[in-house]
């Protein structure tokens, strides 16, 4: 079946396009992109995108889909439904499931479940070390064969720099990136950012250097073995200065941040709302400004969600005891559109950090729309205002500090592999 998306403004940073263009889909493939494609075939489905923006489907390089093992927090089904609602058509899921994704049978389970139940494409990230224990390498080759696109012990750093070196070296064989979670647990061990808020609240704190020192170390190790490195959920100024400086002499560094690091600061934790508890923690005003500047000057290449859904009871406890994390897939893109309104990024620059840049990092053939490419796209409107209502979340995780926030910009329609997988009630049926 053919589908014609008509009258929209296509913004595709991968091909430097920002123009009023129609898109003709043939099944799951883009057949043609052109001005004013005529609706002449019989039985052609026409989607009126006039007044809206059409873009390649967004790619999230960092989400926790929780399956297998934590289906009470999220499943591949609910997580991907949340993803497509938020505009994502591809999601990388982290390895800290139970069992850990450190061998091919878990990878195969995720890939198979995603194929059967997923609303969008799912790309598993394999663990660097067996059981995320930081002691020995996981079955990297077999997992690659089964479909992992990256390696990460996300949730913690690989403490043993010798093992980290081996992971970077071994990753070269399979041409997949290592994703570094930067946190020195001898320096961390707290619950909020160490700074103006923690000095008031008395909560045990995580200093910025807990992240910064591992950023330095991991870059040094990757560079030594000439391997690519991707640093994830970067949150502090010192890290960004280190990354910017290192990028000048070494071209294989990329990094991402998450919407909460440019939307909220540590002050938000003063009311002991456990939905503000996230790792890395919400940082200082100065860090937030540095993150925005790094997005502007491209030190930060990618915006990821670090979608970390949790069951209500794990957040409905004392702050110290509450789980870390924010359910982010359904708010990430709308929160990020504020960067365009604030003049930090152009819309094309913002979309690059959600589409072509993650696709390049993961070496996957998505994130841009050309003749012959997969029909993964979204239609959104940056002017529509809406209020974050966690009752409406498709994710099982309602843990978000953005509940009640008025956001501007809404995803209206998501197409994955040629199929409409999400349609906002505001978007009229053709």
């Amino acid at each position, binding site marked *: 079946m053919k589908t014609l998306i008509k009258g929209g403004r296509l913004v595709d940073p991968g091909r430097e396009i920002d123009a009023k263009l129609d898109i003709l889909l043939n099944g799951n493939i883009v057949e043609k992109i052109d001005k004013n494609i005529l609706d002449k075939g019989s039985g052609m489905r026409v989607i009126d995108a006039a007044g809206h923006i059409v873009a390649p489907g967004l790619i999230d390089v960092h989400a926790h889909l929780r399956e297998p093992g934590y289906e009470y927090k999220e499943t591949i089904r609910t997580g991907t439904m949340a993803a497509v609602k938020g505009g994502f058509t591809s999601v990388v899921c982290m390895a800290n499931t139970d069992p850990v994704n450190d061998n091919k049978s878990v990878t195969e389970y995720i890939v198979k479940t995603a194929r059967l139940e997923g609303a969008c494409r799912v790309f598993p990230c394999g663990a660097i070390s067996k059981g995320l224990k930081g002691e020995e390498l996981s079955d990297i080759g077999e997992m690659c064969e089964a479909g992992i696109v990256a390696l990460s012990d996300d949730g913690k750093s690989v403490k043993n720099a010798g093992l980290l070196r081996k992971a970077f070296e071994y990753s070269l064989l399979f041409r997949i990136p290592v994703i570094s979670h930067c946190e020195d647990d001898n320096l961390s061990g707290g619950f909020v950012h*160490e*700074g*103006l808020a*923690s*000095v*008031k*609240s*008395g*909560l*045990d*704190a995580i200093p910025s250097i807990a992240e910064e020192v591992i950023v330095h170390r991991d870059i040094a190790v990757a560079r030594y073995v000439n391997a690519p490195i991707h640093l994830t959920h970067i949150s502090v100024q010192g890290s960004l200065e280190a990354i910017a400086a290192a990028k000048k002499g070494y071209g294989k560094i990329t990094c991402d941040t998450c919407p909460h690091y440019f939307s909220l600061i540590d002050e938000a934790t003063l*009311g*002991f709302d456990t939905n503000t508890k996230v790792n890395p923690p919400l940082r200082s005003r100065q860090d937030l400004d540095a993150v925005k500047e790094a997005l502007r000057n491209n030190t930060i290449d990618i915006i990821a969600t670090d979608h970390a859904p949790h069951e209500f009871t794990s957040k*409905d*406890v*004392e*702050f*110290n*005891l509450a789980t870390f994390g924010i359910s982010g897939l359904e708010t990430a893109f709308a929160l990020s559109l504020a960067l365009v309104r604030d003049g930090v990024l152009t819309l094309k620059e913002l979309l690059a950090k959600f589409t072509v840049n993650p696709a390049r990092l993961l070496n996957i053939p998505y994130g841009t729309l050309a003749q012959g490419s997969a029909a993964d796209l979204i239609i959104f409107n940056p002017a529509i205002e809406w209020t974050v209502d966690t009752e409406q979340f498709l994710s099982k995780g309602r843990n978000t500090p953005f509940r009640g926030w008025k956001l501007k910009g809404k995803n209206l329609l998501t197409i994955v592999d040629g199929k409409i997988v999400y349609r906002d009630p505001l978007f009229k049926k053709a």
Partner: protein
Amino acid sequence: MNWDKKDLLGIKELSKEEILLVLDTADSFKDISKREIKKVPTLRGKTVITLFYEPSTRTRTSFEIAAKRLSADTINISSGTSSSVKGETLKDTARNLESMRPDAIVIRHSMPGAPHMLAKILDSSVVNGGDGAHEHPTQALLDLFTIREKKGRIDGLKVVIIGDIAHSRVARSNFFILRHFNTEVVCSGPPTMIPPDIESLGVKAEYDMNKAVRDADVIMMLRIQKERGGISFIPSVKEYSTLYGLRKEHIEKAKKDVIIMHPGPMNRGIEIADEVADGPYSVILDQVENGVAVRMAILYLLIGREA
């Protein structure tokens, strides 16, 4: 000045007027404890529960005596006897207690924000009896009461707080209360026990105790918070005692009429020498006495008046 707060969660949330109202109310209650019949009917028919998840001698007894002198009924629950050992959550424990219709719940907990969490879900008044390293509002109120009583004023004083500042809820609450007045507040202790951003609270950090105590009107000593890992921040208790133990030589550097305070429990020979703890400048036992009056004032303001 009217009191309209349901709970007493911290000093941070109080205005200067509210702080002075507590002090003035305590003034009028202090006398009750000196009478032969130490009881007034003010809180007759009211129920006060003290829910203590951390050990306490002074605070718990003080609250209980305060409540009893106002004729309230009191029940004590401490962590050893509570259902937390059977795995019940704090919220569930509190909801269950509330079903028995208490008027106030005084809670002490090792985790910052625990009283705030309860205040949101309970109709009863919640009093923070100390939450982790966050706040200990009634301690700061009784400290200020004692300072005002002994010095006749608060403005113009130099107050020095010495010890494990990072892990001390007493220090924090005192910083929050003293910033409402025209005081010079200095904190001192090993640099590992002074948080980097402490000066944002309007206090000066002076690592050298000998310099810190110079011309002090009030010296407040704190203990090492062993239960919050305090020991790991110093090479040894012996060295700590040498560097930050209050002795006569320090008193000589302070104002002639300096007062020495300590929230207790004291570790004699570590942060305070016997000669100082028992000496003429010490008002440590006055603090304990005043604690009863201040807590009577708090209970009265929270649950003693008809709406």
